[in-house]
């Protein structure tokens, strides 16, 4: 069974969709952050697969940037979660609905 882009891309789509599901179904802020990381991973996989298919470095560079971005996102996100936890002693995002109307 030779490897082709198709399998990787389908896999990446599934991982991405699972990440989306995690964002929708989970209520803990950190779990949602982790689900977002999962989505990013799905996207990364697709990038790398395309890069391999077309033999170009761009895809890998983008993944490099995405990983950096994920690091920044995780740092700020976790800081927010910590601040929120101090405020309300919970990380439940459904309790954070003050900013409406």
């Amino acid at each position, binding site marked *: 069974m*030779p*490897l*082709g*882009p*198709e*399998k*990787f*891309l*389908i*896999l990446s*789509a*599934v*991982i991405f*969709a*699972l*990440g*989306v*599901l995690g964002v*929708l*179904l*989970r*209520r*803990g802020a*950190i*779990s949602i952050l*982790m*689900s977002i*990381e*999962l989505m990013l*991973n799905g996207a*990364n*996989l697709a990038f*790398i*697969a395309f*890069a*391999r*298919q077309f*033999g170009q*470095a*761009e895809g*890998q*560079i983008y*993944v*490099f*940037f995405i*990983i*950096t*971005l994920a690091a*920044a*996102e*995780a*740092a*700020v996100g*976790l*800081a*927010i979660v*910590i601040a929120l*936890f101090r405020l309300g002693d919970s990380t*439940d995002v*459904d309790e954070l609905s003050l900013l409406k109307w």
Partner: protein
Amino acid sequence: MESIAFIVLSILALASALVVVLPVVRNAVVCALALAVNLICVAGFFFLLQAQFIGFLQIIVYAGAIMVLILFVLMLLNVHDERHLGSSGFFQRYLGPLLAVGFVALLVTSLVASLQGAEFPRAGAAYGTVATLGQELFTRFFYPFEAISLLLVVAMIGAVLLAKRRL
């Protein structure tokens, strides 16, 4: 050899992703560990796709730093249990999975339609090496590179500001 690796890694990756996502597992630390497994599996895919450098980066930065940070915060806040959190909203619980399946179905149909049977071309010797990537990164992608480093600094300062009790 590669296909076996692919199958094993996919099963591992999907299983760990499911553990991360499904609310059946209520323990956030287990989720985080599962996510780490998933990240390493994805790194394995990167190796399969001959992107060694990005693969190592994935392990060092993603699994080694970001995930450890998340684990650290989880342990610090000691919110390893989500049991007390009630069920999620109606829309999310029923429409969410439906839409996610629809998303995958749409993507898969289009991908299968366009890429079925395609095989990877032979990669050049320089493909995915540190030298190639470095060359690209510091020439064509120099400004994005600088911008992203600035972003990191800003994120770092922001995180400290947000999380620190007293400055």
